[in-house]
Each structure stands twice: as structure tokens, then as C-alpha cells.
């Protein structure tokens, strides 16, 4: 087994209900869930690969393709909707030349939708990597991503 993965999996040995925490830990390490990792996880838990995929595809947190270096998450929650986040999403889609859910061809950015960060009082909200930007306008959004390499 891949050593890096073995290290991630070791603490979960013999623990019930650990498939989701394992998927989270593996994704935190590798950035996504490559097919080989899914196979290793299945073997580790002695379940089938399709069971692992079945669970992983149910949850929107998991991804199966290599992500970009930075992630731009746009909140499509109710408060952000009422405060005009759709225009911000369009502005970002236009600037990055991709649609929500896609990665730029140079692997620089992913653009993702999220349904509420719990920061609704200062909506609209976008989150670039771990930085929360509040009261965003289309201009501010474009500026927020301009400093990333």
C-alpha cells in the first residue's frame, strides 16, 4: 500500500463507522479522491469499491478530479441570494472563463457553489481558500481573486 495513505488510514483500524472520516482525511491529504485511493480504502475496510463510491458520491464534499490550486466558493444561500449573489457568480464565471463546478484549464482555480457559510449577516459571501470575504460586489470579487498565483 502507498505509504502516505497507510499513514492516513492507520488510526481508523477497527473503528466502526469510519468510512466518511477516512474519505475526509484522504481528501485533506491528497486534495481529491483518486481511483487508486478509493481502491485502497475499500481494501482497508474490506468492503467493495462500489460501496466506497456509493457513499463518496452522495456527499457534495468529495471530489474525484484533481482540484485547482485555489478554491473559490460562492454562497448561494438565501441571504446571499436576496442580496444579489447571482451577479457575483456571473462575474466570476466570466472572469475565470468556467462555470460553477469546474476547474480552470491552468489548474489555478476551482469555482464552487456552497449553500451558506453561516455568515449571512454580512452577505453576499465568497470564500477564497480559507479567507471569507463579506459584502462582496462583482468588482470586489474579481479583485479578491486577482492576488492569487
Amino acid at each position, binding site marked *: 500500500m502507498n505509504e502516505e495513505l497507510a499513514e492516513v488510514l492507520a488510526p481508523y483500524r477497527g473503528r466502526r463507522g469510519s468510512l*466518511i472520516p477516512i474519505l475526509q482525511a484522504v481528501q485533506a491529504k491528497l486534495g481529491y479522491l483518486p481511483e487508486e485511493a478509493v481502491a485502497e480504502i475499500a481494501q482497508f475496510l474490506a468492503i467493495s469499491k462500489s460501496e466506497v463510491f456509493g457513499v463518496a458520491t452522495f*456527499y457534495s*464534499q468529495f471530489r474525484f478530479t484533481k482540484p485547482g490550486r485555489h478554491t473559490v466558493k460562492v454562497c448561494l444561500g438565501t441571504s446571499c*441570494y436576496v442580496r444579489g449573489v447571482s451577479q457575483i457568480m456571473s462575474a466570476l464565471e466570466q472572469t475565470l472563463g468556467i462555470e460553477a463546478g469546474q476547474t480552470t484549464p491552468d489548474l489555478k482555480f476551482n469555482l464552487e457553489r456552497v449553500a451558506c457559510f453561516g455568515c449571512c449577516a454580512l452577505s453576499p459571501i465568497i470564500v477564497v481558500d480559507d479567507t471569507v470575504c463579506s459584502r462582496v460586489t462583482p468588482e470586489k470579487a474579481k479583485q479578491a481573486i486577482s492576488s492569487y498565483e
Partner: protein
Amino acid sequence: MNRLEDAMTFEEIQSLAKVEWEAFDRSDRPRILVGAATCGRSAGALDVLQTVNDELARRGIDATVVQVGCIGLCYLEPLVDITKPGRPRICYGNVTPEIAAQLIEDYLVNDNPRPDLALGTIGEGAVEGIPGFFEQPMLKPQVRIILRHCGTIDPVNINHYIALGGYSGFAQSLKMRPEEIIEEIKRSGLRGRGGAGFPTGLKWEFCHRSTGSEKYLVCNADEGDPGAFMNRSVLEGDPHAVLEGMLIAARAIGATHGYVYCRAEYPLALERLRIAISRMKDYALLGEDILGSGFAFDIEIKEGAGAFVCGEETALMASIEGQRGMPRPRPPFPAQAGIWGKPTNINNVETLAAVAVILQRGADWYAQHGTESSKGTKTFALAGKIRRTGLIEVPLGITLREIIYDIGGGVADDKQFKAVQTGGPSGGCLSSEHLDLPVDYETLAQAGSIMGSGGIIVADEDTCIVDFARFFLTFTQAESCGKCAPCRVGTRKMLDILERVTQGEGRDGDIDKLHQLAETIRDGSLCALGGTAPNPVLTTLRYFHGEYEEHIKDKRCSALVCKNLVSYYILPDKCQGCMICLRNCPVGAIKGGKRLVHVVDQSKCTHCGTCLDVCPPRFGAVAKVSGQRIEVPEEPIPVSPSK
């Protein structure tokens, strides 16, 4: 920590905690509290914190700096409080790093409290020119029980919580029989704050009576309702209150193992929970022999993985077991067969925080707030187009008008009120005729909405109600887990209709079809996700019928939101022929030339609105209308010479 502290009695822990709190509260050094919850951070609180620390170091000032949770005035974030020894605490809003540095110089060094920047004072004593913080319109009508510590104590310091009465409710429960604890909760009238409002004492009784040596207790911190952030604030600002509630619940039902199921979108809440749990272990408040009582309980954190349906209790249990988070039919109820088939009790974050305070201060004290059938207080997240956004706590029975106007300050930007949405995607949209309704479980349900977990979103004249309904259905349709057909297929069909209507392709009979589908989905769905999904559509059909008719019959969207129903015209008496819109139009739909009045070719126009955005405000020559034709020249003509 060492064994010695493991063996401390609760009274010893309390005196230790009091010493630490007194040293903080009565300190002869200045204290600076920085509101550093997620909302504060997004507004720049960490930069402010950095400046505060740098300035203090640079000036050699010895002061205590603490990151605290959110006091609720999110619209004024970042918030900073400064206390000088022997003076009340002064709260400042909209603090930038520059203002923070200025405050240190003006107040700490030169003793000028800067009343012009202050919001209010907290605690005994007055400062000239600064009103009492809790006298402010946003705070005065509030009754802060759940939120009493948020923004005031150091959330990662268990001693602060204990010194202010924390864990004494649990210590009390150790002296009671489980039946007595349950009776106390029943007497308090507490109902579940996760949405459905089920009486908490009764729920515990079911689980208590279930036989089995192994039982589970779950704290539901999934808070998937978009537009709600009450649970996040409590977890970030006062995590021990929730954990104390878990201990009490575990004692009452006889649980051996607890889970906090918290959404991954809340990294700070997760971090605070992890720290809080490890502090509990230091004091033997978790483990094999809690406070030497023989009671054993431990708590594990489970991170959600991004699925709204996992807030539903049976789906949540499946997710904890590591499966796809799909609900299952009840019975069996979780109290009979829950996680791993064992009796399980699930409560919301706020329910558990209320449990702690009920045991600390007594059921009667708690039950004096609220109405006959809805006792106590409820936290609400005010967001959307409301002037003062933030987190509030009010006694149940208060009216929507008091919440929106007295506390929230009314609609933002002097716009016209249109609707208020309570209960998120499972709730409904109410109109101005409902503003005087008291907020309690039954009244909101009668109006077709629900109390829900506490999100209150205000929409103004710029929100199209039909598009708002479409927005909610988009959410529920995407989050439907797909297990049962009424929800999986039904929400898709409803969404199709709403999409057509908002695109200007509404047909006769659409409204009837929406009603039929709504009934089928409501009655036929397996869980409440489907069962309540039609609510936003049903309430908007009921209270804003005219807007649907207008979209379907007149192809008009009076809020000017639905793209296909709006048109753009360039007004000949205003256009200066500057060519800016012409150059920016992405589809080349604008004809014209220098000093010629431009014309939008309506057959080419994609209604993107770029021309309106780029037209210089001093000309204001682009008009956006719906269901209306403005007479303009068909071909460019020279700009009139008078200009």
C-alpha cells in the same frame, strides 16, 4: 493534566475557576475583547487583533487581549470592547485596524473614551456621552439567555464558563434521578429548537424507557438551512453550554456515548468544540468516572460532508454509521432503534444549550418567558434586506413586526418591504399582512410557514417572489436524496414549472399543476425534506398570487429580476452617443455611432444588463422595464443639438 486535578470535586473546580475569572474580570490591567467569530473575521477582525497586539507591544502597555464570540451586532463587525480597571466595558463597532490603534492611543493612553466611536457601555457605571449597550434599539427588546455569554467570555476558557455558573446544572443533575431530570425539562415547557418543536422532556422519556445498556446521544449541529447561523454562533461563542446540555441529556436517558454532528462548513465551530472537549477531559467532566460519580460518557465529533438531508435525524444517523445519508421510515423511532440499532436521542444545539440553563436556574425561571404553548426564548438570525443584520434572542410570542422593525431597524436602503421568509427551504414566505402575528410554533404553522431553526430573511421590492420560490425549489431539488419518488420526481417537476414561468414561458394551468404537485409531494414523501419542500411555493401562491399571474399572463416581472421578461431601451433624450454601451455589449445588439443616439436591437438582445451597468450615471440613458414597450427611434439619429 495530572491525576490530582482528575480527582477534584466540582466545588474545588468551581473555586479554581472563580479565581481565574475574578483575576480577569477585576483585573487591574485594561482588557480588550475582539469579536472574532466567523462573522467578525470575515469583516477583518483578525487584522484588528493583530494591530491591537502590535500597538500594545510597541507602547509597552500591559493589557489582556481575548478573542470572544459574536455579541450579535454582525452588521457593525468588527466589534472591539475595551475595559479600563474600575470602569464599565465600552463597545466599539466598525473597528478597522486604524481605528483600533487610535482607540489605544486615545482611550488607554490619553483617557479619552471617544464617545463618537462607541456603541455603548456594558456593566456597572456610566461613561459620559455613551449610552448603555443594552439600551440600544437592537438589544432592548431582547432577552438573552442562550446568548448570555456570547461576546463576553473567552469561549476556549472553561474556567470562564464555570465561574459564571457553568456545569452547575450538570452537577445538580448528578444528584437527581433520571426521571426527575426529565420531569424538570417537561416542566420548563422546552420544545426542540431544531425545527419541529417536539417537547424535549417527552422525547427524553421515550429514550429513557427504551431498554438497552448502550444508548447514544446526538447533538445536531448540521445547521443546513441556508440563511441561518444561530447554532454556529453559540458553538463559536459558548461551546461549553451545549456540551453541558449533552451531559445532562446523557444522564437523563442513560447514554454512554455522544456525538456532535457538525457541518464541515463551520471550521471555527469545529475547532472550538475540539478545544472545549479536551478541557472537559482535563476536569474529568468526560470519561469513565465523571466527577467521581461513576457516570461514564464520552463525546466524539463527526464532521458533516455537505448534504442538507443529513440534518434529518434518520439520515444523520445513517451518516454517522458511515453510509449514504438517506432517511428511513419511522417507526422505529430513534428512541427505539437508532445508531447501530441502539436507542438514540437527537437534539439540536440550541435545545441542549437551553437544557443547561434550565438545570442551572430551574424550570420555573425558564418558563416565565414565552407563551403558554411556546415557552422560553428563541434565537433568530436576521439577514437579507434588513437594516440591522445579526443574531438575536427574543421571548417566543414576540411579533414579526417587533423583530423586523424594532430590532432589525426595518428594510435596508429605504426600500419597500415585500416578504419575510422563516424556516428556510422548509418554511414559508409571509407578507406584510402577517407582520403582527406572534412568533410561536402554532401561529407560524397556521400561516403556512414554520418556526424552523430560526432563520429570518427579509426580502424587499427588488426580490421577485416567483424567482424566490424557484430559488428554494432549486435547493430542495438538488438536496433531495432521491430515495422516494414524490420528493425526487415531484420537486423536479415543480422546479421545471417554476423555471418556465420565470423564463417567460408560463402557461395556463401551471398554477393548478403546482398545487397538485405540492399536495402529492407533501403527503407522499418519506421525510420532512420532501414533506415541507412545497411550503415556499404554497405560501407564495397564497400570499403573492398576483405575481404569478403577472408572470404567466402578462409576461411581466415587476421586480425586474426575471431576465427573459425584462427589456432594455436607450432613451433618446438622455443618450449622448458616447459608444460605451455599444462597445461593451457582448452580442453586438446596440446600433449607433459617435454623437448618434444608440438603439438596442431587441431581437438580438440577451437581456444581460451590461449596457445599464456601463452607461455613465450622469447620463442614465438606459431604461430597464418589464411588460412594457418604450417608444424609441428604430435607427440611430443624431443626438439633439441642445445638449
